[in-house]
């Protein structure tokens, strides 16, 4: 999805500092301090995790840290709510399978 550069009410979006991070091994860019989920959405990433039982894809749902559907493995820690965790330079973000970053053998 696109970033909104100018908004009729909010005006011009302030330019933030561009940082690099890795998503499942690829290098992506985002704006420092924005939620990880925002940077991922701009990059077109919709699926953040696969569920433990039914292995179904999930992504951002509430965007305010309540529903926990957008959790991913961030810097080795699982269950990180990407919609409220600020993006930092060099973060390693991985799709979460169940509660781990490793795809389960099925």
């Amino acid at each position, binding site marked *: *999805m*696109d*970033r*909104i*550069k*100018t*908004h*009729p*009410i*909010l005006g011009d*979006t302030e330019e933030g500092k561009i940082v690099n991070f890795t998503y499942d091994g690829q290098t992506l860019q985002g704006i420092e301090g*924005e*939620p990880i989920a*925002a940077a991922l*959405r*701009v990059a077109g990433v*919709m*699926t*953040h995790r696969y569920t433990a039982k039914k292995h*179904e*894809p*999930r*992504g*951002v*749902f*509430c*965007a*305010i*840290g*309540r*529903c926990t*559907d957008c959790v991913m493995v961030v810097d080795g820690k699982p269950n990180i709510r990407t*919609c*409220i965790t*600020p993006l930092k330079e060099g973060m390693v973000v991985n799709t979460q399978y169940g509660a781990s970053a490793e795809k389960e053998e099925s």
Partner: protein
Amino acid sequence: MERYDLIVIGAGPAGLSAAIEAAKNGLKPIVFDENARPGGQLFKQIHKFFGSKEHKAKIRGFKIGDDLLAEASENGVQVVLNATVMGLYPEKEVTVKIGEEIHHYKGDSILTATGASENMVPFRGWTTPGVIGAGAAQTMMNLHHIKPGNKVLMLGSGNVGLVVSYQLLQAGCEVVAVVDAAPRIGGYGVHAAKIARCGVPFYLSNTIVEVTGDEAVDGVTIAEVDRNFQFIPGTEKHFEVDTVCVAVGLSPMAQLLKQAGCKMKDTPGGFIPECDEYGATSVPGIFAAGDVAGIEEASSAMIEGRIAGAAIANYLGYLDADGLKEKENSLEDALGSLRQGMFAPKNRGKLVTKTEEGIDTSMNLLEKGFVADDEIERYPGVTHTVGIHPVMECTQNIPCNPCQDACAKGCISIGANITSLPVVKNDVKCIGCGMCVASCSGQAIFLVDEDTGDGYGTVTLPYEFLPLPETGEKGIALGRDGKKVCEAEVVSVRSAKAFDHTNLLTIRVPSDMTMKARFYKRA
């Protein structure tokens, strides 16, 4: 363990207002909020608020948020962010997670202002990435400046669904439909009309059958439902979308109060604490204000917060009974006026067939989102006269009156009752300044000159989209239903600081179209 006079849980409109009021009375409050920014949902509210001056009407929500934060800071209110309250105990102890540690605090009083969470409705495919809450859409576009999707279907026609649909259009997204299982639009008619005239169709008595797409949403099927909310076979409609937004109401987040042992009650509006008129719960010293005590608007939450703040000051001996009474009297009126009109709590879910003035309700507005051309003439704000004059398509009794003060000439009158429909006083000459157009939070006021002498006339309409049309360009005029009525030429585009980002677009259309043309689209 640290002790505070008042611990406020939640730095939204209710919590901050209570903390400010308490601080003004000499208490030292501390406010905890789990979010990285204070203000609750106010900073996502980019529309102009309803109400009157005392409710900060016609000011946009995020500006009200800024003002509230400034006031909190002036009064020495300490706000701790990224501080998640994990537990609340009857002895008025709270446990708060800050960083990597759990801290314990004791309050001589506690105000719970934890707000609400969004309701959800399950349907096939509701877990597919791309199905989001309306709040999520607001957060993405208004806080993080990203488009939630390109093509969006909105489920829910309450004020949240309507306002967020409009905001999606402002963010440059396409809204393919607003769908609601109810037979009538739940939110303000003026909010519906704003999106209907942009061409967004409403599907009432419809709901989602299925969202399609394996890894992400690629479409959604809706169908009509009968009175028992069962699908009617053969009525399915499919839309190609990448996002489905769900706005089916809010529920109070009152778990902390329940945990603290407050007496709770289950109401149609959610599971809420039993409170007196000051927000005091059954546990002495524990208060509640805002959505956690029953879903209302942010404007009401701020007043409830002020009342609770004063009551807490009284509870701890900082404010005497007379002082509290005085405060209560001044605030109760403001709160009471917000709870009047067609959308008053007592009218929830009811079909109101006549306005307070005895005028028939527009059924088109309730079912399709716009007042039909043959219905509009019956409202007192819609009149005809020679020369430029305001046409106020305000057809429901809602608590709002900024238009009355906007006109320096006194063309517009609402009167003492804040929910009355605005009346045009045609004996006063309109100068076409447009302040009324810009000040109407419902964007329901237009300046119309039915005949400029050459068989044409002009319509001035509120316009909050980008890119802004340019003077001289030609396009099409859309009717209240969002369908083309005629060709139109932009004759002026006015933007002024006083209009607060509501631009005034004046289009030239044939005279017989001046009462029909209500939006402009580039050709």
